[in-house]
């Protein structure tokens, strides 16, 4: 029967496409391989169900399609079968949900030694801020924003004087150190999205959101905006460069602090220590 065959082909074709697809997730660059594992579990379970249901359906069409004199069976329900299917489904759902919630717990629990950095979105560019040698970032306010102070730092906050402000450059991160990425937006919703990091979070004006991660692979990665933010949404790009510790520090040395930028040389740049100690 042609119809049954085509239905079966749809199922088989989908599985084959899945196996041979050249389009697949990017090689991971952070500690979130747990997320990839959870996706894999989900693919296995849902794939099996998908194939089973469609194959069963195709078989029914093949076996029971209308022929002269055929009469359907009369079978209003089958309590036992329905219960078993329900329980089986619940088990399958549980097998996906349990690891999911477990990893989510890790995702939202930021380790104590994570260095805070800040990413700020605005139409349509990214700015970054790294804490100075005091390891702490100064407070900010949208109302302070001006051409000389693009991220709106408070001029009176001592913690902010040595912060490194990168207005339209790339973000550099050291490998192997957990970072808590604080996310802020000046105007509309944006979303800091680096496919290789797996993590992403909206940036909401009036709020500070965050996620954390530990880079595990050096390289240069594209930053995209993943929340529709206006006409140039697709062009809102930047790069993140994950480096070895030494290179990172060499780069950091060349950056200017907030105090320098805003013309107050009270705090000069110093040698930075890495996060933690």
């Amino acid at each position, binding site marked *: 029967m042609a119809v049954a065959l085509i239905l079966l082909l749809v199922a088989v074709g989908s599985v084959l496409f899945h196996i041979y697809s050249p*389009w697949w997730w990017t090689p991971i660059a952070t500690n979130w391989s747990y997320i990839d594992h*959870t996706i894999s579990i989900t693919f296995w379970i849902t794939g099996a169900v998908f194939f089973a249901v469609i194959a069963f359906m195709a078989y029914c069409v093949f076996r029971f399609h209308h022929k002269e004199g055929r009469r359907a069976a009369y079978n*209003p329900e089958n309590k036992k079968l329905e219960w078993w299917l329900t329980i089986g489904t619940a088990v399958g759902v549980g097998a996906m949900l349990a690891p999911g919630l477990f990893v989510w717990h890790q995702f939202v629990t930021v380790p104590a030694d994570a260095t805070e950095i800040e990413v700020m979105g605005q139409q349509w560019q990214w700015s970054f801020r790294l804490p100075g040698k005091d390891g702490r970032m100064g407070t900010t306010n949208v109302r302070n924003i001006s051409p000389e102070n693009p991220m709106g730092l408070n001029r009176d906050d001592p913690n902010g004087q040595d912060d490194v402000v990168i207005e339209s450059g790339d973000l550099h991160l050291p490998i192997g150190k957990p970072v808590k990425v604080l996310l802020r937006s000046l105007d509309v*919703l944006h979303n800091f999205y680096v496919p*290789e990091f797996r993590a992403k979070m909206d940036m909401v004006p009036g709020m500070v959101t965050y996620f954390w991660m530990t880079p595990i692979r050096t390289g240069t990665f594209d930053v995209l905006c993943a929340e529709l933010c206006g*006409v140039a949404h697709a062009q809102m790009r930047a790069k993140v460069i994950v480096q070895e510790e030494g290179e990172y520090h060499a780069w950091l040395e060349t950056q200017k602090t907030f105090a320098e930028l805003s013309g107050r040389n009270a705090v000069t740049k110093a040698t930075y220590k890495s996060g933690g100690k």
Partner: protein
Amino acid sequence: MVDVPYDARADAPPAEVPEVELYHPRSWWTQYVFSQDAKVIAIQYSLTASAIGLVALVLSWLMRLQLGFPGTFSFIDASQYLQFITMHGMIMVIYLLTALFLGGFGNYLIPLMVGARDMVFPYVNMLSYWIYLLAVLVLASTFFVPGGPTGAGWTLYPPQAVLSGTPGQDWGIVLMLVSLILFIIGFTMGGLNYVVTVLQARTRGMTLMRMPLTVWGIFTATVMALLAFPALFVASVMMLFDRLLGTSFFMPALVEMGQQMKYGGGSPILFQHLFWFFGHPEVYIVALPAFGIVSDLISTHARKNIFGYRMMVWAIVGIGALSFVVWAHHMYVSGMHPKFGFFFATTTLIIAIPTAIKVYNWVLTLWRGDIHLTVPMLFALGFIITFVNGGLTGLFLGNVVVDVPLSDTMFVVAHFHMVMGVAPIMVVLGAIYHWYPKVTGRMLDDWMGKFHFWVTFLGAYLIFFPMHYIGLLGVPRRYHDIGEAAFIPSSTHTLNAFITVMALIVGFAQMVFLFNLVWSLFKGRPSGGNPWRATTLEWQTPETPPGHGNWGKELPVVYRWAYDYSVPGAAQDFIPQNQPRATPAVQGAAP
């Protein structure tokens, strides 16, 4: 196919259900234009929804042309692309599917299937349609106002929706909100009718558990819509205040293009909560009628009772109730408090269980059936495949941590098109092939129907199945051009071009369908009253198409559930609901 050869009404006792006060049309205008007959209103709703739906279809081609061949079409720029996705999404979800399932199928089928003469408030029902039409016209007018329609995405998130970085900031967004408010008012008027008609105007013997699942689906969806649409209403009104009166419900302090704005303190996330409190139930408002209708299509065309009817009813009610406590699964990466993730992931995955039961029961209905591969049945099979596929990818997006990498990518676009785009459209099309004979008295052409099915089903599957993998790769949604990025292999562009070609082919098949609709109206084979030999009441009307008041002199009386197909010992393989005895007197032996 044969007509029912006996007169079921012969031994029915006279109906005691009080008759609705029927209005009687006096002129051509009140009969066909300002009609209060639910059947006419249903057709008005369906035609209007299809007309605006065609606009959304054309928009989808333009979007696909841009995505498949970026830079080739100079008349599509970034802001137009955003306007297109917004209008396409909003029209498809609300003005096409919601209006078609509830206003179209609801109006036509509810009174007929429960054995009523009409909706209980015909005048309000008529108003409902005209307000809907007004809403559609206001929406369409945004194409012609200065600045064009809004490009904020169908979710209309503030603050961007009302700021100048988004196209359609001055007129588009205002008219969009006005149109939504009108739609909701109009829908509420219609919805009151559908609910009260089911509650109050069922004919004698039509207990709840004898109602066809179509009625169950549409009824539950309407109840949900009545309760959920106010959330969109509130959100729209508040956004209008923000936009027009300068309030700060949703608008925080912000600097736009170097300019300090007067807003301050508002919460964009508040809007998202309100929007999705409506938005998630909306998904099921579209899905539940489809569930109901497809159950009846499968049962009728497999000549077998629906398997596990009671479970099917409980699942519809359970899904309806549960779907009010899952809305924040659209907000996992919105910046809301992370602890909500645990709760909403759990509720979301729990909904999968009743939904899966429905799928099992559809395929188990096929088991040992007598499957007639008619066009409606083919569409039902197509629905099962696309719905299972889309439902399973929903388990990815509902499971909070899995959603983190996938949210806002093309994976999401592929998922919701599969589950609430293609799957319900399969049901809509199957339902049109199924009920067209009742509406017009003629069959749709079978050959064109099969061609339409295969191209639409396989084409749509080829559009949206591979699209998941583009999303898995990491391509974000709402990008008019993915541009250069190290992680995107060049083969992705080839795939995008392929998807575009498929989209154009599927679009072409719809033109064949439209031709079929018109051609069969004049040239189709006369169908008789009950061409599919179905049990439900709408097929037992004395006239086809049913006349004014539906039932002639007396209302039908119901003696059995809606699924007496292939009952052992019965002479025929179906027993209509209004037939008292299981085995009718031997035909032709009458004096």
